[in-house]
C-alpha cells in the first residue's frame, strides 16, 4: 500500500517506515522502554523529557534525533523534522483530528510527510492461522477481505459543514505493530503551497466507534514533516528559531514599570569617537607601529619549529635561478635554502616596503 508513496521519501523517513522500526513501537505503554532498548542515551533523553516521553511522537522524534546524531543527515533527508500533534474534535459525531501546521516556516521546503496512527485492527496472518492446520485449503478458507482505512484530510470548515476535502488516501494496515504509517507528502505539500495549514483529519474504517489513538491521551495520531530549511544557513538562523524571549513579558506590560516607558529615563550608551568613521582604526584600540627588530625577536613563538612556518609563501617573489642551476640543487639543499631565504626575503620585503 506504500509503494506509490515511496517515491520522494527522504532516506530517514524511508528507513523508519520500512526498516521495521514501527514494530518496536508496538506497545504504547512500553514505548519509551522498548525504544530505549540498546540505547542508554535514548533512555536518558526519555528521562529528560519526563511525562512527554510516554508520548509516541516524542519517542519517535527522539529516535530520529539519535539517528541523525549517529549517522548525520544524509543528502535528501533535509535539515528539519517537525512533528505535529492534533486536537481531537467531534463534529457531527465524527472524531476529527485538528492539525495546526502553521509553525512551518516559509523557508522550509517540504520533502515528505508521514501520518502515524494507532490501530489494533491488523490482519491476522494466514500463515499463523494455518500453521497447525493440515488442511491445504486453509489458506483459501481464510481469505478474508483485508481491513482498510480511509484517511481524509479536510480544510477547517468555514462555509461548508465539514470543510473541503484536501486529500483522501486508503490505508491497508501493516502485518506487524499497532502503529501504522502512511505517506501523505502530496497532501502536506499542497496544503503548504496553498497556505492552508489548518487541517482536519478523519480516519474511517467503516465501523462505528472506531478510535484511532492508543490508550491514554498521549498516543493520538501525529504527522511528521521532513523539510529542508533554506534559511538555516543564513546568519543568525539559530537565534531566529531558538532564541525566543518575550521582550515585553506580561509583568512588564504596565507602562509605569516598563524601562522603555519613558525616553527620559533612557541612557545614551553610544560614544562619539572623533574620526572613527573616516579611518581604518577600530574604536578604543591603541595602535602601535612595530619596529623592524621586533619581527624576528619578539614575534617568533618559541614552540614552533621552522618547518611549521610557511616555506612556499614567498617563493614566487624570489629571484629565479636558471633551470640548469635549479636541477643541480639537491632536495635537502633546496629546503635549507628555502628556509634560510625565507627570512631574507621577509627582510627584503620589509626593507622595500619601509623605503616606499
Amino acid at each position, binding site marked *: 500500500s506504500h509503494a506509490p508513496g515511496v517515491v520522494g521519501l527522504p532516506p530517514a523517513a524511508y528507513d523508519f517506515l520500512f526498516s521495521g522500526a514501527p514494530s518496536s513501537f508496538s506497545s504504547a505503554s512500553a514505548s519509551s522502554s522498548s525504544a530505549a532498548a540498546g540505547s542508554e542515551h535514548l533512555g536518558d*533523553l526519555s528521562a*529528560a*523529557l519526563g511525562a512527554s516521553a510516554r508520548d509516541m*511522537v*516524542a519517542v519517535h*522524534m*527522539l529516535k*530520529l*534525533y539519535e539517528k*541523525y*546524531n549517529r549517522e*548525520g*543527515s544524509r543528502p535528501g533527508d533535509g*535539515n*528539519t*523534522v*517537525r*512533528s*505535529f*500533534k492534533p486536537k481531537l474534535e467531534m463534529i457531527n459525531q465524527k472524531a476529527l483530528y485538528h492539525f*495546526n501546521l*502553521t*509553525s512551518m516556516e516559509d523557508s522550509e521546503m517540504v520533502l515528505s510527510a508521514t501520518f502515524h496512527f494507532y490501530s489494533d485492527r491488523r490482519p491476522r496472518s494466514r500463515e499463523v492461522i494455518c500453521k497447525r492446520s493440515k488442511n491445504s485449503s486453509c489458506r483459501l478458507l481464510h481469505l478474508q477481505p483485508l481491513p482498510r482505512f480511509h484517511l481524509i484530510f479536510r480544510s477547517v470548515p468555514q462555509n461548508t459543514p465539514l470543510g473541503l476535502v484536501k486529500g483522501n488516501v486508503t490505508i491497508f494496515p501493516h502485518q506487524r505493530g499497532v502503529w501504522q504509517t502512511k505517506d501523505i507528502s502530496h497532501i502536506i505539500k499542497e496544503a503548504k503551497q496553498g497556505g492552508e495549514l489548518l487541517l482536519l483529519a478523519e480516519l474511517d474504517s467503516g465501523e462505528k466507534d472506531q478510535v484511532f489513538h492508543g490508550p491514554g491521551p498521549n498516543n493520538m495520531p501525529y504527522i511528521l514533516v521532513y523539510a529542508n*530549511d533554506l534559511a*538555516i*544557513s543564513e546568519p543568525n*538562523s*539559530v537565534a531566529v*528559531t*531558538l*532564541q*525566543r*524571549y518575550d521582550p515585553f513579558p506580561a509583568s512588564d506590560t504596565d507602562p509605569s514599570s516598563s524601562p522603555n516607558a519613558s525616553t527620559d529615563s533612557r541612557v545614551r550608551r553610544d560614544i562619539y569617537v572623533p574620526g572613527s568613521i573616516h*579611518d*581604518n*582604526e*577600530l574604536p578604543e*584600540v591603541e*595602535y602601535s*607601529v*612595530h*619596529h623592524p627588530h621586533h*619581527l624576528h625577536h619578539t*614575534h*617568533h*613563538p618559541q*614552540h*614552533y619549529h621552522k618547518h*611549521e*612556518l*610557511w616555506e612556499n*609563501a614567498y617563493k614566487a617573489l624570489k629571484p629565479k635561478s636558471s633551470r640548469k642551476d635549479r636541477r643541480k640543487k639537491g632536495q635537502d639543499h633546496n629546503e635549507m635554502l628555502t628556509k634560510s631565504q625565507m627570512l631574507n626575503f*621577509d627582510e627584503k*620585503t*620589509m626593507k622595500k*616596503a*619601509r623605503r*616606499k
Partner: protein
Amino acid sequence: QWNEPRICSRRYLKVDFADIGWNEWIISPKSFDAYYCSGACEFPMPKIVRPSNHATIQSIVKAVGIIPGIPEPCCVPDKMNSLSVLFLDENRNVVLKVYPNMKVETCACR
C-alpha cells in the same frame, strides 16, 4: 587554558543551554562542545594557523607598519561542524533541526 599557546588555536568551550536560558525548550542536547578560536595572528604566521593569502599580506602590512590602523588578521573558525537540536516549538510540538556551523573543528587566521 592559560598554559595553551598564545598563537591562534582552538580552545575548549562547553556551552550549556541552561547558561544562556534556552533550556526551557531545548530537549537535547543539554550542552555541547562548541569550542572557540583565540590567539594571536602575528607575523610571521605558522602553517598551522592556515592564513589566507589575504591574511598573509595583511600580516606583512601590519608588521611593516607603514599604514596606520591595520590590525593583525583575526583568529576565526575555519572548519565547523553541524549540531542536531531537538526542541519544542511555540506550539509545544517537538522539532528536530540540524544547524550548520555550530562547533569549531579548526581555527585559522583570516
